[in-house]
C-alpha cells in the first residue's frame, strides 16, 4: 500500500523516498532512528546525573571543589562542542586501553560511548547551573520551617528542597534537554550510525539528498515536539494548585 505509492512517486514525480519502498533502506532508517533515540536518552541521563551531582558539589564547603566545578562549567560552555567531542574521541580515545576480542583489538569505549560521554558532559555543564538556580529559588524561610520541625539537613534536602527546586527549574531544564537532543546529531562526526549519519549514507547511495533532507527535518521536528510535549505534561502534573499565579 505504502510502498507502491512511493515507488510510483519516484517514477512519475522523481521524488525518491527510497526507505519507504526499499526494504534495505527502510531497515537502515529504523536502525538510525533507534540509535538516535538511544543516544539521546543516554546523553540526557548522563547530563542529568552530572547536573545533580555538580549542583550538590557546588554547595560544598571546600573551595577547591567549588573551583573545580566552576572551572568545569566554564570550560565546557565556552569551547566548541564539536572540538570537545573530537578531543574525547580521538585525543582520549587514543590513550584508553584496548580489549582483546580474540584476534583483533577494540577500544573499551566505542564511538557511541564517547559521544554519550562527551555530549553528556557538555550538557551537564548547563544542568549544573540550572539545578543550582532551582535550589537557590527555594526560599530559605521554607527550609527554615522544616529545620524548626526537627528535619535533618538530609531530610530537608530530600523532602523540601529537591521537590521544589525540580519544579522551579523545569522550564529551563526542558530547554536544555531539547537543545541536547539536537546536539546529539554531532555524533555524526565520529561516525555513530544515528539518524543523520544513516540518512547521509542513504543519500550518497541513492542521490536523493532533498528527499532525505525532508525526512531528517521531519524527524527532528517531531522528536522535539514529542520531548516538549512530554516535559509539558510533567510540568502540568507537578504544578502546585494556586501556586505562582
Amino acid at each position, binding site marked *: 500500500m505504502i510502498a507502491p505509492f512511493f515507488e510510483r512517486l519516484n517514477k512519475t514525480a522523481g521524488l525518491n523516498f527510497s526507505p519507504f519502498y526499499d526494504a534495505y533502506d527502510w531497515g537502515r532508517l529504523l536502525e538510525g532512528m533507534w540509535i538516535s533515540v538511544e543516544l539521546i536518552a543516554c546523553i540526557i541521563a548522563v547530563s542529568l546525573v552530572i547536573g545533580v551531582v555538580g549542583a550538590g558539589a557546588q554547595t560544598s564547603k571546600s573551595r577547591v571543589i567549588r573551583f573545580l566545578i566552576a572551572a568545569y562549567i566554564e570550560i565546557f560552555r565556552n569551547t566548541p562542542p564539536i572540538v570537545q567531542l573530537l578531543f574525547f574521541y580521538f585525543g582520549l580515545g587514543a590513550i584508553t586501553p584496548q580489549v582483546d576480542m580474540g584476534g583483533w583489538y577494540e577500544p573499551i569505549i566505542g564511538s557511541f560511548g564517547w559521544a554519550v560521554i562527551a555530549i553528556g558532559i557538555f550538557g551537564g555543564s548547563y544542568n549544573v547551573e540550572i539545578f543550582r538556580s532551582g535550589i537557590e529559588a527555594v*526560599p530559605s*524561610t*521554607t527550609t*527554615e*520551617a*522544616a*529545620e*524548626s*520541625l*526537627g*528535619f*535533618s539537613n538530609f*531530610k530537608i534536602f530530600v*523532602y*523540601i528542597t529537591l*521537590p*521544589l527546586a525540580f*519544579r522551579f527549574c523545569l522550564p529551563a531544564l526542558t530547554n536544555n534537554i531539547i537543545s541536547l537532543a539536537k546536539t546529539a546529531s554531532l555524533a555524526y562526526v565520529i561516525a555513530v550510525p544515528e539518524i543523520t549519519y544513516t540518512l547521509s549514507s542513504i543519500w550518497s547511495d541513492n542521490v536523493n539528498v532533498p528527499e532525505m533532507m525532508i525526512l531528517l527535518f521531519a524527524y527532528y521536528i517531531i522528536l522535539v515536539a514529542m520531548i516538549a510535549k512530554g516535559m509539558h505534561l510533567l510540568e502540568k502534573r507537578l504544578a*502546585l*494548585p*494556586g*501556586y*505562582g*499565579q
Partner: protein
Amino acid sequence: MSRSAAPQTDWTPDQPIIALKDVRKSFGHLEVLKGIDLHVMKGEVICIIGPSGSGKSTLIRTINGLTPVTAGSVKVEGQEVHDDKLDKLALRRKIGIVFQQYNLFPHRTVLQNVMMAPVLVLHENKREVEERARSLLAKVQLSGKEDAYPAQLSGGQQQRVAIARSLCMRPDVMLFDEVTAALDPEMVKEVLVTIKELAAEGMTCVLVTHEMGFAREVCDRVYFTDAGLIVESGPPKQVFGDPQDARTKEFLSKVL
C-alpha cells in the same frame, strides 16, 4: 510513642522552662542583641513588644537555635541550646515556632504539611499522626481543607495550618514570631483566637507581636525591648498602665 528520654539535667518544672542570660548577637559589626535576660515559667504567656528593628525577631529565633548567639546562654528545660553537642532534634520537638510568612511547604497538602514532621522526623505511626492532625485542623477551624494546597488558602488559613503543623509535634513551648503582621486585618482575629485558646489550655507561649490589645488581654508578662535591650518588663497592667521608662512611654503613646 517514640519520645526519646529527657536529657540529663537537674532541671525541675518549677524552674523557668526558658531562661536567657546576657544573650548577645552581632551580625558583623552590627550588635542586635546587647545582653538580654529573660525567663519563662511553664504555662506562662509572654509577649515581647517594642519598636521595629529592636531585635525582637532575632531574640525569639535564638530560643530554638535558628539564630546562633554570639555570647550568653539560652537554656530550655535546663539544656543549653547553643551547645554543639546538643541533640537538635530533641530541642526542636520541645519547641514549636510559627513565622510571619507561614512558610508552609507549597508542594504538600494541608494534611501532609501537618503530618510530615511527626511521621518523617519522629517516625510515629502514620495512622495515629493522621488522626491527631485531623483533630488539630478541626481545632483551628480548618476541617474540610485537608486536601487543599497551601497556595489555595487565605493568609489567615495558612497561618492556622502553620500553628497546627507545629502543634502536631506536641511541643512544650510555642514561639510566635509576628504571626499576624502579614495578614489583612479581618484575618488577624481568627489567628489570635486560635492562640488565645492555646494559652487558655495552658500552653507555654512566647509571642513577638504588635497587637497591643491582645498583649494586654492575654499575656501574663510583657517584655519591652528597644535597641537590643530589655527596657522594661512586668505584668501587662503595669507595663501598659504605668510605664516607668521614657522609651516605653514614648512607644506606647505612638501605638496605643
